[in-house]
């Protein structure tokens, strides 16, 4: 337990950062022990937005529970839904039509782009630059419009269903994605001009928030946090799902181990996502967008696990079925939770500014941590 107000016996200052704080992006509560400006310890306190999604899913059928997972990591809602749909398909041994697979991958990569755009803006805002936030939203807005047209919603789409996707692509989809890619390529250099190349930004990011590859593995960090320390962890490469094994893209690895490396991983990952979208957008196969399924889905008795690479890392979905229409137990392995656990390691000995910068590079989405 910690003291609510005041100092420790050594005379250190304890600050309760959050649950309402501009830089914690939600309701994360950090108990920070400070010696002057220097951080001695950071202790995250969770549970402010716990909605017991896992328990809720146990009373929902296999069709119904997918929509709830959009509310976990709401910035990669598509990928959450995708992972769940894949797990159900594994249980049903359902073959997803090729068209649906391509649509799913396209949507996943668009989601990843949108999520990284938002992260980029929020990251810069954490460091005190407000303008990039609005510039990032300009591109993200276009992706959201594309999503809205095809899926009917902008953030919590519920587009993936067991066996495929809910609707076919909108006729305008291809053209609009191409327009977006053109816009994106026209604007991408501004990101470097505004933030990446900026001397203040580089000084704030380089050499702070260091985590070694060994520590990455022992903390269980995944996604850009792991890849920033040179640990290969891209589920799309290591355990390819859908059509990722047929696509040409690189797993982005940086060996800086610091905040700047994690920043660069995400910036470069955006370009890889663009590359994937470019490969697929003109090669969407014809055919069904949804496999034929029974009206009531029943998973056979057993345990099923599937994982997908969200914008934050590896999302695992673990279903235990007793053979009924609802899962007996569901467990989500969310990337944000493991990444957050490394926070204390990242910022110990740094300044308050480093804490904010390192937290920005972890790209935390609090509902994903608490579920």
């Amino acid at each position: 337990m910690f003291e609510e107000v005041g100092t420790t016996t050594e005379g250190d200052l304890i600050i309760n950062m959050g649950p309402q704080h501009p830089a914690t992006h939600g309701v994360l509560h950090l108990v920070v022990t400070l010696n002057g400006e220097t951080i001695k310890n950071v202790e995250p306190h969770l549970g402010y937005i716990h909605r017991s999604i896992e328990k809720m899913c146990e009373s929902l059928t296999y069709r119904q529970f997918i929509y709830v997972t959009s509310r976990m990591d709401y910035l990669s809602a598509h990928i959450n839904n995708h992972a769940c749909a894949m797990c159900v398909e594994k249980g049903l041994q359902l073959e997803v039509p090729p068209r649906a697979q391509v649509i799913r991958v396209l949507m996943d990569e668009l989601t990843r782009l949108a999520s990284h755009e938002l992260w980029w803006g929020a990251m810069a805002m954490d460091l005190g630059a407000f303008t990039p936030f609005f510039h990032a939203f300009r591109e993200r807005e276009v992706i959201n419009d594309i999503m809205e047209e095809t899926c009917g919603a902008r953030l919590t789409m519920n587009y993936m269903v067991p066996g495929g996707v809910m609707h076919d692509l909108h006729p305008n989809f291809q053209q609009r994605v191409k327009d977006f890619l053109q816009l994106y390529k026209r604007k991408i250099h501004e990101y470097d001009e505004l933030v990446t190349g900026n001397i203040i930004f580089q000084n704030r990011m380089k050499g702070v928030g260091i985590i070694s590859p060994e520590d990455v593995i022992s903390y269980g960090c995944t996604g850009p946090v792991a890849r920033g320390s040179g640990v290969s962890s891209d589920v799309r490469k290591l355990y390819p799902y859908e059509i990722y094994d047929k696509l040409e893209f690189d797993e982005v690895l940086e060996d800086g181990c610091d905040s700047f490396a994690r920043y660069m991983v995400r910036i470069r990952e955006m370009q890889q996502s663009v590359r994937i979208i470019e490969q697929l957008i003109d090669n969407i196969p014809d055919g069904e967008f949804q496999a034929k399924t029974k009206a009531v889905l029943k998973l056979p008795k057993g345990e099923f696990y599937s994982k997908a690479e969200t914008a934050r890392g590896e999302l695992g979905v673990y279903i235990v079925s007793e053979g009924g229409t609802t899962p007996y137990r569901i467990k989500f392995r969310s990337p944000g939770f493991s990444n957050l656990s490394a926070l204390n390691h990242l910022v110990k000995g740094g300044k308050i500014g480093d804490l904010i910068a390192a937290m920005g590079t972890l790209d935390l989405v609090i509902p994903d941590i608490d579920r």
Partner: protein
Amino acid sequence: MEDEAMFLKQYIQDIWGAIKSLATGMKRTGYYFTHHKEIITQQYPDNRDTLVLPERFKGEVVMIHDENNEHACTGCTACELACPNATIKIITKFDVDAETGKKKKAIDTFVYHLELCTMCNLCVEACPTDAIKMAQTFEHSVFDRSQLTKKLNKPGSKIRAGIE
């Protein structure tokens, strides 16, 4: 001496690089300051008349009625079962056919709780007769919560002939 010269050179290079990087950023923001056509703000309540939402946009569930005030809902409760949040409640009644005198099951009230709905579209997918659809309305604010509980079948409406 050599080291000092190198140090000084490095020092000046650092400063020059820093100033250059800052100037690049200022050039970019200066561009946007002077180019107002890049502004992306949409003035929402003002552009209501020209606002077009995509036809798939999920705003609320409505029941489709044709010009004869007839709908296609048989009261099969597939949507009620498909809904994850118990948003839909269908109350059925028995109509007596005037010609044959047979009793026939029909809906009395299609209750829709907008306040519980998450717009997941599962009910529309589940409906075997395409009786309901998603409307593109999105301004759902009301002063009293009870107004959010809606009756979707219009008064006096009945099921279209031929739909089983």
